[in-house]
């Protein structure tokens, strides 16, 4: 993937495919000097115990369209090749949490990229989904929660073009559009 934000989109789409309707996305560029941590957590049904050890194996998938699943394997490989780390935890009651750490200045670490585009794509493509998005940079730290934004909208859909535009502006105002 060309950007870390594309991995976020991919992993979050996994959550949606698993029937999650809430995803927490946390990007922390201040966690430890020179590192970026990315955490994606959902309220889906979790991954079976027998599967959890092998989800990063590309030849393990629950999908039927094709027999190879690359999403988690790619994310893990991207983290590990950049002197980072990868971890996945799943509980049938609490959902699944995927966490990866990247070394910022490593030659194999992709830029964080356009996280606003990732959030907008998730909201537009999956109108029933709620997202809590947290992002901390050395300059600023902020979060937004679509459950709260929905309340302010008083019945207007979150995937209305005008709403998506404003959410995009809000994110870019807080963390800058180029990362």
């Amino acid at each position, binding site marked *: *993937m060309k950007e870390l934000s*594309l991995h976020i*989109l*991919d992993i979050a*789409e996994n959550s*949606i*495919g698993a029937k999650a309707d809430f995803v927490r996305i946390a990007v922390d560029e201040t966690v430890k000097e020179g590192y970026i941590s990315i955490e994606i957590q959902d309220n889906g049904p979790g991954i079976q115990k027998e599967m959890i050890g092998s989800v990063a194996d590309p030849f393990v998938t629950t*999908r039927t*369209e*094709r027999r190879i*699943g*690359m*999403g988690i394997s*790619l994310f893990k490989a991207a983290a590990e090749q950049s002197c980072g780390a990868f971890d996945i935890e799943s509980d049938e009651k609490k959902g699944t949490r995927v966490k990866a750490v990247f070394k910022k200045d490593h030659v194999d670490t992709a830029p964080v990229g356009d996280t606003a*585009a*990732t959030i*907008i*794509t*998730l909201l*537009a*493509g*999956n*109108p029933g989904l709620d997202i809590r998005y947290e992002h901390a940079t050395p300059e600023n730290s*902020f*979060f*937004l*929660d679509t459950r*709260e*934004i929905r309340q*302010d*909208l*008083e019945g*207007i859909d979150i995937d*209305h*073009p*005008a*709403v*998506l*535009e*404003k*959410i995009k502006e*809000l*994110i870019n105002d*807080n963390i800058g559009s180029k990362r």
Partner: protein
Amino acid sequence: MAKLSVDDLKEIKERAAREASLRGGETTVKITVHMSTCGIAAGARDVMATLLEEKAESGRTDIKIIAGSCLGMCSSEPNITVEAADEEPIVYQHMDVNRARQVFKRHILKGEVQTDFALGKM
């Protein structure tokens, strides 16, 4: 927490009210952007962004753009499926920003199927 400002909300509500008075809430065209690992790696997010831009520009509330799963045709990603009312669904392959814009402007707005980009042609 970051929130939409009062001015933003006012602007959104005015625009939504204006569009709702022009058209009903019924969906006449559904566009599915296949948003799986293969699609995302090939550029599906940019395709989605383009379609959303075009939709916003057209002001058409009867067009629905959603994210879908993998079609199993990973080598032709990004794929999108266009389902217009009373028409056969069309799958377009190898989408990029410009092609997606063309599909939107010609097929969705004018009803001209872009056979050059279709996945299958007999």
